[in-house]
């Protein structure tokens, strides 16, 4: 089923993703063979479902249900923070790039379908679901468990972030 994907297609998407990742302060796995295999999986899923469903998770084929696992998935950043790689290990942390940490399989963070279907309450300012972090260098704001490794706007390091809300 993958036979109709050319090496040229894989290389082209790989280069695009690599460029975009680096521009945003992210890194693709430096194991190029491994990474290109995942890129091939993304193209396979695009052909099959019409979107880049995570190659390492089972897509439902229903886009609304799969939104959280469209690459880069909702779980990439917390996984990079906790495990230095996303679930597939397509994206890795700076530590991995520096050779300080090896990539290994990580547990699945995505909740089972039943839990995902539970309605989430509408957030208000007094009960924000996540802290808001501010880049002290450029003022970039983001709501997540931890600040990013590198500011996607100005490339300032994690330690330049402060808790804002």
């Amino acid at each position: 089923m993958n036979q109709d994907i050319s090496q040229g297609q894989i290389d082209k998407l790989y280069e695009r993703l690599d460029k975009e990742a680096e521009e945003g302060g992210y890194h693709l796995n430096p194991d190029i063979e491994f990474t290109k295999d995942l890129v091939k999986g993304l193209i396979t899923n695009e052909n099959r479902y019409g979107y880049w469903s995570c190659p390492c998770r089972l897509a439902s084929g229903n886009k609304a249900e799969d939104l959280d696992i469209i690459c880069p998935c909702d779980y990439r950043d917390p996984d990079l923070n906790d495990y230095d790689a996303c679930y597939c290990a397509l994206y890795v942390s700076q530590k991995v790039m520096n050779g300080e940490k090896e990539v290994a399989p990580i547990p699945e963070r995505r909740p089972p379908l039943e839990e995902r279907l539970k309605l989430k309450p509408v957030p208000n300012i007094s009960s924000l679901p996540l802290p808001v972090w501010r880049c002290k260098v450029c003022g970039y704001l983001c709501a997540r468990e931890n600040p990013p490794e590198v500011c996607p706007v100005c490339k300032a390091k994690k330690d330049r972030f402060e808790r804002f809300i």
Partner: protein
Amino acid sequence: MKIKHIEGEKNGNIMMYTLSTCVWCKKIKKYLKDLGVEYHYIDVDLLEGAEKEEVMQQMKEYTSEVSYPMLVINEKEYIIGYKPDEIKEKLGL
């Protein structure tokens, strides 16, 4: 059902649930092949409709937290993820 059989030395009944696009799944298939053990696998993402549902249900009988690859030994013990050391230990190799 599209269960694939890989020949090798019999070491219990090894069934693997995998995805054709998943690189960790590819690694585990290669690992078992290199170990030379007999195993079966099914690429769940290549299934459709009732067949897909049935296989997903089979997996859920082992755990509600299903992910890939999932290796089941003798329809009893299961290992989720690419964990060579744990596989070797559970297979007694």
